[in-house]
């Protein structure tokens, strides 16, 4: 081992207090860098998840749905109701200029009665055209959703045998979705024909919802519209509202904008906070290095007397800093994972933020980046501190009594 490495390691071991102090600063630095970026990335991903789940450009529901809530409620709160549009209205909407695809959804609110296992909101969607439910389900379940298959939200209690009963019929639970903190967690999702059949069996029962005389085999509760390239979404939405009286259309953008504005504000604040703490700990690092190296002037003088060059002194300081800061940063990373484990559990609900943790690979890269940032910060600080001291003449360094 070279002398510089040897004496660096011995210095660290023989001055545990000094080493731990410096290590703590590196730890603080790495916790800030890591948790700060983790939070910002998670919020960004959560927001993207929201947008992706929205999928479509325009949502149309019947005017009769007014009493049950707005389009916002369907989307963001996952609150649905039993309201339906007949086929002829759907055709009219589809005929509006600028519409590329129309995906139907069929809502059914199950009764809390002997007929049904639990009171839930059932949503039927069309797997071929769907752009709002599938992308979200895909995180949890990648298989096909066949006849009588259902996917349930996190609040719906999972039966032991994997079978839920609605209106006298049994359905197979294929997957349970992650928590979103919204009414979507109370949902049950299945393909269109399964839900239509559910509605059919309901219509014969006393606990049945009223279907307003619509033909359940062709009706839909909501239409999710994708607008053609080159058409203005707002104009298409206005067109629908003006020309078709029995429905209300709303653009997806108008629904998420207030949420995304809020989220961007929060993630910006976290980012700024992280940068501020980061700058503070770098300043702290510089101050502590300056103070610590002050008491080491004589030691440096002695090394110079023995023939060490300025370059060797900077090397020794840098090696010490590198070892200590890496230990500190690794500890910091370890500590950072405690709140992260919390976040993926209870925190998300308490904060009511769409918090989606980064992929494992991103986390790994974040860890690496954190180590590099805190390592570089302390090594550079150490290097320049040593340079500053070494610039003083040895004859003067030796005069500094310790």
């Amino acid at each position: 081992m070279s002398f510089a490495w040897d004496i660096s390691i011995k210095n660290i071991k023989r001055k545990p207090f000094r080493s731990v102090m410096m290590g703590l600063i590196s730890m603080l630095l790495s916790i800030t860098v890591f948790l700060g970026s983790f939070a910002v990335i998670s919020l960004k991903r959560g927001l993207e998840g929201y947008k992706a789940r929205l999928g479509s450009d325009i949502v149309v529901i019947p005017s009769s749905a007014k009493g049950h809530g707005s389009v916002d409620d369907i989307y963001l709160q996952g609150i649905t109701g039993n309201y339906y549009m007949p086929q002829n209205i759907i055709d009219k909407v589809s005929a509006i200029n600028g519409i590329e695809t129309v995906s139907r959804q069929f809502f059914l609110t199950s009764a809390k009665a002997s007929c049904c296992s639990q009171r839930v909101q059932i949503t039927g969607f069309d797997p071929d055209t769907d752009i709002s439910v599938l992308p979200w389900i895909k995180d949890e379940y990648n298989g096909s959703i066949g006849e009588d298959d259902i996917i349930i939200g996190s609040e719906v209690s999972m039966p032991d045998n994997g079978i839920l009963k609605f209106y006298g019929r049994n359905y197979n639970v294929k997957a349970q979705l992650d928590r979103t903190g919204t009414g979507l967690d109370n949902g049950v999702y299945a393909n269109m024909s399964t839900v239509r059949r559910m509605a059919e069996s309901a219509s014969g029962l006393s606990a049945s919802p009223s279907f307003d005389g619509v033909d359940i085999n062709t009706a839909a509760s909501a239409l999710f519209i994708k607008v053609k390239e080159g058409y203005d979404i707002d104009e298409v939405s206005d067109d629908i509202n003006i020309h078709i009286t029995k429905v209300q259309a709303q653009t997806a953008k108008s629904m998420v904008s207030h949420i995304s504005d809020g989220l961007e504000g929060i993630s910006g604040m976290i980012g700024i906070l992280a940068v501020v703490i980061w700058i503070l700990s770098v300043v702290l690092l510089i101050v502590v290095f300056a103070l610590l190296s002050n008491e080491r002037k004589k030691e440096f003088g002695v090394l110079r007397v023995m023939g060490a060059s300025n370059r060797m002194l900077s090397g020794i300081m840098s090696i010490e800093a590198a070892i200590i800061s890496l230990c500190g940063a690794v500890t910091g990373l370890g500590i950072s994972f405690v709140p992260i484990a919390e976040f993926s559990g209870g925190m998300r609900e308490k904060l009511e933020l769409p918090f989606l943790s980064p992929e494992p690979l991103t986390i790994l890269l974040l860890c690496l980046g954190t180590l590099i940032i805190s390592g570089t910060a302390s090594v550079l600080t150490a290097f320049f501190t040593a340079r500053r001291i070494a610039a003083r003449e040895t004859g003067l360094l030796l005069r500094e009594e310790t």
Partner: protein
Amino acid sequence: MEIRADGISKKFFRKGRGTNYFTAVEPTDFTLYSNKLTGIMGRSGSGKTTLINMLSGLLVPSEGKVYLGNCDIYEVSDIERSQLRCSHIGVIPQGYTGLQSLTVLENILAPSRICGGEDRTEKAMELMDKMGITHLAQVYSNELSGGEQRRMSIARALINSPHIIIADEPTSDLDEENTVLIMGVLREMADTGAAVLMVTHDKQAAGYADAILTMDNGRLIT
């Protein structure tokens, strides 16, 4: 090899009457010869340490040049100057200068490891034996007494077998026994060919020198 000083002086910035600087060493010519133990005496503050620091390549003179052999040691780069000091000059600084993270043996070996080159553990054992500190080899330097520390730093200065030895008050506040031991070693180094320069306040130590110079108010009187 000899050290030759050519009109070196040192001024420090220090507010005084009428001037902004203080002359610690007036322009001085001086040669340190091989085979000789040269002593410098003088009152405290007369500039002895300042002078020998300039001679050992640790303090840049305000004017003048210092030659080691033919090499102007303040003309070359820091790395080269460090290398020269490492391999040719053994410096015993004033006061206690053990590196606290290292044991006595590691301290003594440090200059040879800084310099690079072969392992000198055997030489270190020999020197420790000569200085009577063999039993302290594995002790950390801050656990030593004053006399033991001083003997360690002398062994450390000699580890690379330097041609030039510069000692700043090597026997201050030591007892007679230690003084005799240390001066015996320095004398032996001079007798075997080294150029030895020693600053001292001690009459007994001065008795070992071939020549005594006096420093007075920054002036070296021969």
